[in-house]
């Protein structure tokens, strides 16, 4: 009985949280790397995409990296789990999520990937095996991801008995991050994505006070909201209120049905019988004559 109650309560909690999580904005899946925050340099971005391909070829594992600015009120793990579902990633997939504006991150993965790599190992990659967490805290994104992938590569080689090599750009960025001593809160000399460069260098505001720095995901959301409005406007250009009730087609069907019903009534039956008695068999004759006439006219 207690198990049953616990089950129902768990289901309710899951359903309630699903409702609560329903409205977080999620980036579109752009493949192995989705850097919506635009914080990674182009060299490292290409290297991550290339490395993900190597991992896929060698181990059949799918590696995904997503970087957003904010988590829309969710915690990093919930957002990562939801993004994993939203992108419909498979059992062999590993997703590393980072929220640049919140200095937070999480990993989500499929069942097969979890069995092979273990959740504990993946958490260690972020916090202990690499300098990822500390580097994210210092907003050194290239260095953070490069160090993460150095540790990830070791783990993959160990678990799959493989000999995968990291792209040079990743090793270089990881070495640069280790060699450099950066003061907390101060951005290092790592190269970064264009939006991030704008963020740290500052951009002027427009007269209306709005900033040019709107991430692609948010702009897309606003566009989608406008599309939803246009869809409604288009619907009412072709349709106006008050068209409710039975349409022309409906009335025709109704009339045919009423005629069929009345054809089964006493008076109509009686009239039919009387007609058949007086003009018995002539109906067929007239019918055949009509068909013959139509064929004749068509030939002419």
């Amino acid at each position, binding site marked *: 009985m207690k198990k049953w109650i616990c089950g129902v309560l768990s289901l309710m909690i899951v359903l309630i949280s699903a409702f*609560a999580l329903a*409205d977080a904005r999620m980036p579109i899946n752009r493949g192995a790397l989705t850097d919506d925050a635009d914080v990674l340099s182009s060299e490292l971005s290409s290297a991550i995409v290339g490395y993900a391909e190597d991992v896929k070829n060698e181990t059949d594992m799918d590696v995904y990296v997503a970087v957003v*600015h904010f988590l829309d*009120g969710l915690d990093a793990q919930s957002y990562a789990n939801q993004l994993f579902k939203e992108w419909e990633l498979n059992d062999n997939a590993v997703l590393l999520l980072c929220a640049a504006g919140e200095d937070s991150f999480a990993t989500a993965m499929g069942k097969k990937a979890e069995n092979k790599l273990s959740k504990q190992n993946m958490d260690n990659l972020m916090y202990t095996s690499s300098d990822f967490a500390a580097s994210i805290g210092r907003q050194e994104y290239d260095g953070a991801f490069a160090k993460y992938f150095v540790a990830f590569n070791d783990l993959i080689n160990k678990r799959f008995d493989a000999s995968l090599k990291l792209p040079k750009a990743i090793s270089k960025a990881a070495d640069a991050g280790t060699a450099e001593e950066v003061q907390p809160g101060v951005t290092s000399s790592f190269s970064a994505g264009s939006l991030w460069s704008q963020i*740290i260098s500052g951009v002027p505001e427009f007269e209306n006070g709005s900033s040019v720095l709107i991430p692609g995901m948010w702009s897309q959301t*606003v566009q989608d909201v406008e599309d939803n409005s246009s869809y409604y406007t288009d619907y009412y250009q072709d349709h106006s209120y008050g068209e409710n009730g039975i*349409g022309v087609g409906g009335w025709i069907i109704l009339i045919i049905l009423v005629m069929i019903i009345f054809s089964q009534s006493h008076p109509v039956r009686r009239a039919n019988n009387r007609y058949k008695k007086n003009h018995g068999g002539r109906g067929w004759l007239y019918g055949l004559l009509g068909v013959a006439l139509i064929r004749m006219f068509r030939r002419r």
Partner: protein
Amino acid sequence: MKKSLPISVCILISLALVLFGLAFGTVKGFGDDKQQVTQLLSGENGLMDVLAYRGADGHNLCVVASRHLTDDPDVAALSQTAAILTDGTQSLASKKAANDQLDAAVQTVRTKLLESPSFQDSLRDQQYLAMLEGDLKNLTATDKVSLYNQAAEGFNEQLFKGVPGWIATLLGVKPCELYQ
């Protein structure tokens, strides 16, 4: 020999058919119209989503603010307002009240942030503030509220006038809730 029906039964069946047709057509027609209006409210990227996105921006601003203002009551108030907007179980009326408060709450936190020395030193958070304010403005500019209210009022007007509207109301079609 086939059995024939009395004329009164035929009339009754026909009347029932016509009434069923009228009821079905009316309910279906009003149902389709209501679905369009509902799509504007709770469909994907409808008004409820716009309010939730605004709430999400409120939450995001709280994250930025908490780096500079610790245990601040105004940040807590903004967080509460944002939570109502992102909560799918809240009523439209409570969401409207929260949305009305949101801009003022954002302004209060903004003013406090601008006075904070650590915020003045952080170019990143200054840009994040501008980014979030920009998104809040963009979401407001979609003018979803007036479009939804206009659509809901149009639907309700039709529902409360004429025979089809009367039939639809009788058959359980309910008016749309206005965002007010």
